[in-house]
């Protein structure tokens, strides 16, 4: 894994957000820095955002850790080749990012701490549509809400398995227009 900048950025993100590993901004900085050294897009700006959250001592630790990791991973495999293509099959087979060009998501607290107005900060209640580049697929925002799922007994051709019941969706989501 350590040879691939995509995985390095993913790891850095995990350390930054603390979603599946304990949050560790020193580790996060180190992995963004490694990914940047290998040419990964967005790595440097993310590294600087994380750097803004570190104390001077933590920054020194992060840079030391980064160089230790760098010496280890630079002996490992080169990045995976990239194949261009837009079809489902090609996207599945390739390492192209079909969403390149989308606004970059940054948690509001991080964006604010960095004072960086170029980064889009949208919350899980973002409430807006967007187009997936490459797929050219418009994603439609569906608001949270409550509805009756299934069919009423009066509906023609209904089936028993369509038991009418109330469902609440507490979070909005997006679905493809088509």
């Amino acid at each position, binding site marked *: 894994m350590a040879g691939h900048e995509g995985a390095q*950025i993913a790891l850095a993100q995990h350390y930054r957000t603390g979603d599946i590993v304990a949050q560790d901004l020193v580790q996060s900085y180190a992995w963004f820095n490694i990914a940047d050294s290998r040419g990964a897009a967005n790595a440097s700006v993310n590294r600087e955002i994380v750097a803004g959250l570190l104390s001077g001592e933590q920054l020194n630790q992060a840079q030391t850790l980064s160089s230790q990791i760098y010496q280890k991973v630079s002996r490992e495999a080169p990045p995976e080749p990239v194949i261009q293509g837009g079809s489902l099959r090609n*996207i599945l087979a390739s390492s192209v990012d079909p969403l390149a060009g989308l606004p970059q*998501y940054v948690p509001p607290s991080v964006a604010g701490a960095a004072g960086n107005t170029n980064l889009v900060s949208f919350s899980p209640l973002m409430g807006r549509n967007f187009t997936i580049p490459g797929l050219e697929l418009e*994603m439609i925002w*569906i608001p949270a809400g409550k509805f009756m*799922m299934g069919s009423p007994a009066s509906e023609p051709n209904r089936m028993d398995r369509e038991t009418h019941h*109330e469902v609440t969706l507490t979070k909005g989501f997006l679905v493809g227009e088509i």
Partner: protein
Amino acid sequence: MTNVSWYDAVAFCQKLGESTYIKGNIPFGYRYKLPTETQWEYACRAGTTTAFHFGATLQKGQANFNKHVNKTQPVGSYPANQWGLHDMHGNVWEYCADLYCAYPSGRVVDPAGPSTDSNRVIRGGSWNNFGMRCRSAYRHETTTRSRLNGSLGLRLSLRPE
């Protein structure tokens, strides 16, 4: 997209999810996935309570069904529902994330459905189905490897995990 199996559909969502997560392009806690059956019906209904989001019946010019055209049509060829979604009724069946199971009779909040590997729910009916199978509430199920001869596809969702 048509002619995909449930596994193809899930793999596609995961691929999108990896690349977007890496770039930090999706909100925290959200992932590209197939919609749950609940989300599918909620999105299809768009606030309506009738058999179809168009009303009590489905007309020839509103959706691709009942072999009026006898093949799939380019997506977006028919009118959208009130939330701007096309082809919720007819054209191709759409995979949901959920395993088929009986509905509860009481109120539920954010149901996810079981996730063990068995038959999956498909929704919306296709070009070769009668209107009753294209209803907002109609539930069908199929195996995870089925492609239903090109009448089965997917609708992408970006939703909370």
